[in-house]
């Protein structure tokens, strides 16, 4: 085991694993450090949506956020390309299915919202098509009669989160990256150049020298950033998901709703996964703060509400058996956009966390790897400007 690495990645989720692979491939010596086991957090718990249409949560709060979301569309268009080649790049079956996504509307208000969204997307270069109810049911006969319109984007779909991170990790390992699980980071000291990173495994401590550090620890990222004396406005979010028993192929598309919380798809195994941002309840740790490591409590109203919307949009769901509800923790930032890039006051310290990291994860990883390796840096900086840590630098103005 070496004591010097070009890059230490903290967190073996999707982004950490993907960035590790990119950098190792480009010749860097990489160590990935994971406190639990790989893919344990949101990366493995999410439902695998590949969504590129502007998300409902950005439309909820009026125009301002919708503008930011439109800027994300540029990243989405990159993600469409990145996902197209991923299975080949990793020589792995990630169960990527892209038969299109439908964002449905039922009421006149929702239709209006949908129309506005489609217009924005068009202006940003995303080819969403507005369909009326009948046209929607023509390509998706499983949709309810109450669906009055739908935004259809051919490139949307889903992949298997349980396969993606492990595939990145295997490829990273083939390129020489090292993975240590059950290993916590207990200190980060800037030593210019580089960082001393203290690790703890089985009660034994060890310090490694890192040329660069990437914090990709999802909801745990703020705690890790604390070790480097940095504030990160990333907050844990507890969500709830439902899975039906395996059923015959019925829903080939990713189905969302413009006015209500809903995201549905049928996994490669046949289970219908039903989610859409329904809250679960975060648990508090011994210190009184939210603990993202404790399994959130399910909320009955979320389960019922989610399943009600699902059955309204896809009536066949009512006859299926619910197999399992689970909760997981993801992360959200102060302005709902992820934080991806270099921390201005600590050059060499990078962050990639804060949500949307399944769909956009591989793209974030590709771009931040360029920043880390200083290859085509300007282009990467430009693409990541909308999610740059610099926008929160004011929070660290008094951090010594």
């Amino acid at each position, binding site marked *: 085991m070496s004591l010097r690495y070009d890059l230490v990645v903290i967190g073996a989720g999707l982004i950490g694993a993907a960035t590790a692979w990119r950098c190792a491939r480009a010749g860097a010596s990489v160590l990935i450090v994971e406190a639990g086991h790989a893919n344990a957090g949101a990366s493995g718990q999410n439902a695998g949506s590949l969504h590129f249409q502007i998300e409902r949560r950005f439309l909820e709060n009026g125009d301002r956020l919708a503008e930011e979301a439109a800027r994300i569309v540029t990243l989405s268009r990159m993600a469409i390309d990145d996902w197209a080649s991923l299975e080949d790049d990793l020589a792995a079956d990630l169960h990527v299915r892209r038969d299109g996504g439908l964002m449905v509307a039922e009421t006149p208000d929702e239709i209006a919202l949908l129309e506005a969204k489609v217009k924005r997307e068009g202006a940003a270069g995303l080819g969403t098509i507005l369909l009326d109810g009948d046209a929607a049911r023509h390509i998706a006969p499983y949709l309810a009669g109450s669906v009055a319109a739908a935004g259809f984007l051919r490139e949307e779909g889903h992949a298997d989160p349980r396969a993606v991170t492990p595939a990145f990790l295997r490829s990273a390992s083939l390129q020489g990256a090292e993975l240590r699980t059950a290993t916590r980071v207990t200190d980060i000291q800037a030593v210019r150049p580089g960082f001393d990173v203290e690790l703890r495994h089985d009660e034994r401590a060890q310090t490694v020298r890192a040329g660069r550090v990437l914090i990709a620890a999802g909801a745990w990222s703020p705690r890790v950033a604390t070790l480097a004396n940095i504030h990160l406005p990333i907050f844990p979010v507890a969500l709830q998901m439902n899975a039906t*028993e*395996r*059923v*015959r192929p019925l829903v080939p598309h990713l189905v969302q709703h413009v006015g209500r919380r809903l995201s549905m798809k049928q996994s490669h195994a*046949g289970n219908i996964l039903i989610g859409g941002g329904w809250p679960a309840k975060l648990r508090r740790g011994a210190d009184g703060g939210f603990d993202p490591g404790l399994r959130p409590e399910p909320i009955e109203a979320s389960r019922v509400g989610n399943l009600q919307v699902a059955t309204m949009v896809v009536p066949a769901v009512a*006859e*299926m*058996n619910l197999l399992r509800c689970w909760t997981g923790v993801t992360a959200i930032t102060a302005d709902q956009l992820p934080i991806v890039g270099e921390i201005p006051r600590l050059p060499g310290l990078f962050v990639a966390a804060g949500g949307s990291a399944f769909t956009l994860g591989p793209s974030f990883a590709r771009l931040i790897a360029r920043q880390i390796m200083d290859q085509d840096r300007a282009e990467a900086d430009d693409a990541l400007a909308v999610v740059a840590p610099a926008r929160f630098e004011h929070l660290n103005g008094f951090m010594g």
Partner: protein
Amino acid sequence: MNGRITHHVTRGAKLSITLDGRTLDAFEGETIATVIMALSSPAFRQDSRGDPRGLFCNMGTCSECFVSVRRISGPVRRLRACLTPVSDGMVIETTGGYDV
């Protein structure tokens, strides 16, 4: 009637059910599992590899015996055969490689 104990046992009313299109006799109070196990081939479903599978625990915990059930009224339901009493006119289908 294969397997049914008759010594010291009186059964309830005879009724008629359909299993995969086949009409079968059954008795009030019997579970769907009993009726299927009385047949020569005790298969309840096919697994994801297409192999036939049968009932295992007979008490609702192993989930091997899920079948599709339609009664006179109501939606088609996927129920555990070992816990479901038969009723007259019940239409039962064993399931393919998917759970449904």
